[in-house]
């Protein structure tokens, strides 16, 4: 077990720089999820830690060792691939023992460790089978078993669940989380899935265009997104972003439709500036018309049973707002709803740079 340190890590393919200087430390035993849209460089970053991609600039340290020039084999890492990458011509046992055999671990020890791992992953009955005789979930477990059995210092997961069906994904998600807690091995997990990002890790690194947008606990990122990108990327349905400006005394946000929404704290240094105001759909609360801060005209109503998603426009302006209301709400297109929001649930962003200012 050891910590991982990124020190201004960069990656270019020819003249194209795809990762622009990433910093950050992953603590010993910590589970960090890297999330971002496709092409943000998250897999590349993971593969750089693994040693499958060269590091153009900066340093990656595992433990106290700079691993930039080390072969993947020498980094004491194990990786779980999206397509499992099992050796198709070997049995489950051979798949799991391959790495140990190379390291010249004694036969009896190999047998003990593989059987132990198989026990944890409930793979014991399948040790003699070949990968093609296994289901998707079982293959995934073999891939994890192959990683665990090596007792590496670091686990790397490259979207390991995206080839599974929805039900299995939920189950495997829980298993991975339990397993990581039980083994306490430093792990990096790359995904583009919202739920995996929020639930799996101790901390979340949000990547966009080769830059770290925010690095913190999932709840911090949900409650206090630092940038417009993070605000709209994390959370489903995505956060509503409305154009507006701060009032001249900095205490309220004024929308393009004229409504003034009181902020929790006055923003004195930004008085009168253009802003973007963020409101999560689940934070909009229905209320009586006289207490309302926002009036929404429903366009489309989606009934999910547990809650109702309202796609609406803001008081006749072109701006679309999505609201999530608990339970079943009978609503028709064109109907008018009144909403209010707690001031602490408001997110205020600088209009130019997209940085959080409240």
């Amino acid at each position: 077990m050891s910590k991982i340190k990124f020190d201004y890590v960069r990656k270019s393919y020819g003249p194209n720089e795809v990762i622009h200087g990433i910093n950050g430390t992953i603590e010993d035993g910590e589970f960090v999820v890297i999330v971002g849209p496709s092409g943000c460089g998250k897999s590349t970053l993971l593969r750089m830690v693994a040693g499958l991609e060269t590091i153009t600039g900066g340093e990656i340290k595992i433990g106290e060792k700079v691993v930039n020039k080390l072969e993947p084999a020498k980094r004491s890492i194990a990786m779980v691939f999206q397509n499992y990458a099992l050796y198709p011509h070997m049995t489950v046992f051979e798949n799991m023992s391959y790495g140990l055999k190379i390291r010249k671990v004694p036969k009896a020890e190999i047998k003990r460790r593989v059987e132990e791992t198989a026990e944890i992953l409930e793979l014991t009955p399948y040790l003699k089978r070949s990968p093609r005789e296994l289901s998707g979930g079982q293959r995934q477990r073999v891939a994890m078993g192959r990683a665990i059995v090596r007792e590496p210092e670091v686990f790397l997961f490259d979207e390991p669940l995206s080839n599974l069906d929805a039900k299995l994904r939920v189950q495997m998600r829980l298993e991975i989380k339990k397993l990581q807690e039980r083994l306490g091995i430093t792990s990096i997990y790359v995904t583009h899935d919202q739920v995996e990002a929020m639930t799996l890790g101790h901390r979340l690194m949000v990547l966009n265009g080769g830059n770290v947008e925010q690095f913190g606990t999932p709840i911090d990122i949900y409650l206090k997104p630092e940038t417009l990108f993070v605000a709209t990327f994390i959370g489903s349905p995505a956060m509503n972003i409305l154009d507006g400006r701060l009032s001249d005394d900095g205490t309220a946000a004024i929308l393009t439709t004229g409504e003034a929404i009181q902020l929790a704290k006055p923003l004195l240094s930004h008085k009168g500036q253009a802003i973007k105001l963020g409101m999560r759909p689940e934070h909009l609360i229905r209320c009586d018309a006289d207490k309302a801060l926002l009036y929404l005209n429903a366009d489309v109503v989606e009934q999910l049973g547990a809650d109702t998603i309202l796609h609406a426009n803001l008081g006749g302006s072109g701006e679309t707002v999505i609201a999530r209301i608990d339970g079943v709400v009978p609503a028709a297109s064109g109907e008018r709803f009144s909403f209010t929001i707690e001031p602490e649930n408001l997110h205020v962003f600088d209009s130019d740079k997209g940085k959080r200012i409240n």
Partner: protein
Amino acid sequence: MIKRVHFPASPLPYLLVAPQIVITIVFFLWPAGQAFYQSFHIEDAFGLGSEFVWFENFEVLFTDPLYLATFWRTILFSALVAVVSMGTSLVLAAFADRVIRGATFYRTLLIWPYAIAPVLAGAIWSFMFHPTLGIFPYFLEMAGIDWNHYMSGNQAMALVVLAASWKQIAYNFLFYLAGMQAIPKSVIEAAAIDGAGPVYRFRTIILPLLSPTTFFLLIINAVYAFFDTFGIIHAVTKGGPASSTTTLVYKVFTDGFIGLDLGGSAAQSIVLMVMVIALTVFQFRYIERKVEY
């Protein structure tokens, strides 16, 4: 239950396959039938008449130590050609698979030998190794080796194997390269992370996953060495010296057209035909179901 598509009866389909059928009949069935007929006859010395002799030609053949020697020589020749050409192409394909820049150029160069006619390939090699004119005997002499494949049977065999293998490398290379590129990259990466070096990875991952390709190529190369190397042998050694490079196919030619033993030669071609059929059946039976996985 298999449902078949029914077309209304029409002469068109028969018309369309007719050229192929005609070619098969004229160039394969007819000569094969002729050989079959002749293999049961012995022709008199002046070609004026022939006598039906049942299996005498075959009896003579299988008791002739020269024929048996030729049979084993052919097996040796085929094995050497298969090993040399497949081994070389495997190594070349492994390198081509790693090359990123100039890969197409490299591949094109490697595929060229396939476009060269067998006799020309033979001519090239026989010039390069000509005892008095060739460049290689010159180098070999520096190394203290006296090269003369017109005198030494083993050297002649080595040269024919070399020429025949070289011709086949391009074909094997293509199949091996395609086979390697079909192996998912992540499997190789997983092995690298598991700690396997390039050579160990090649031995334990790539080679086993290529076994269906290897099996296929083994049959193809055997068939090639058995039946398609006449031109090369004819151009390089003419089966000599002292029959040391005479393979079964070459013996059919020498016995039939030089020795004028048409019956015996026909019997030999029947034996060869049976071998081709056996190899082909074997290939169809086992190639279709994958060897590995």
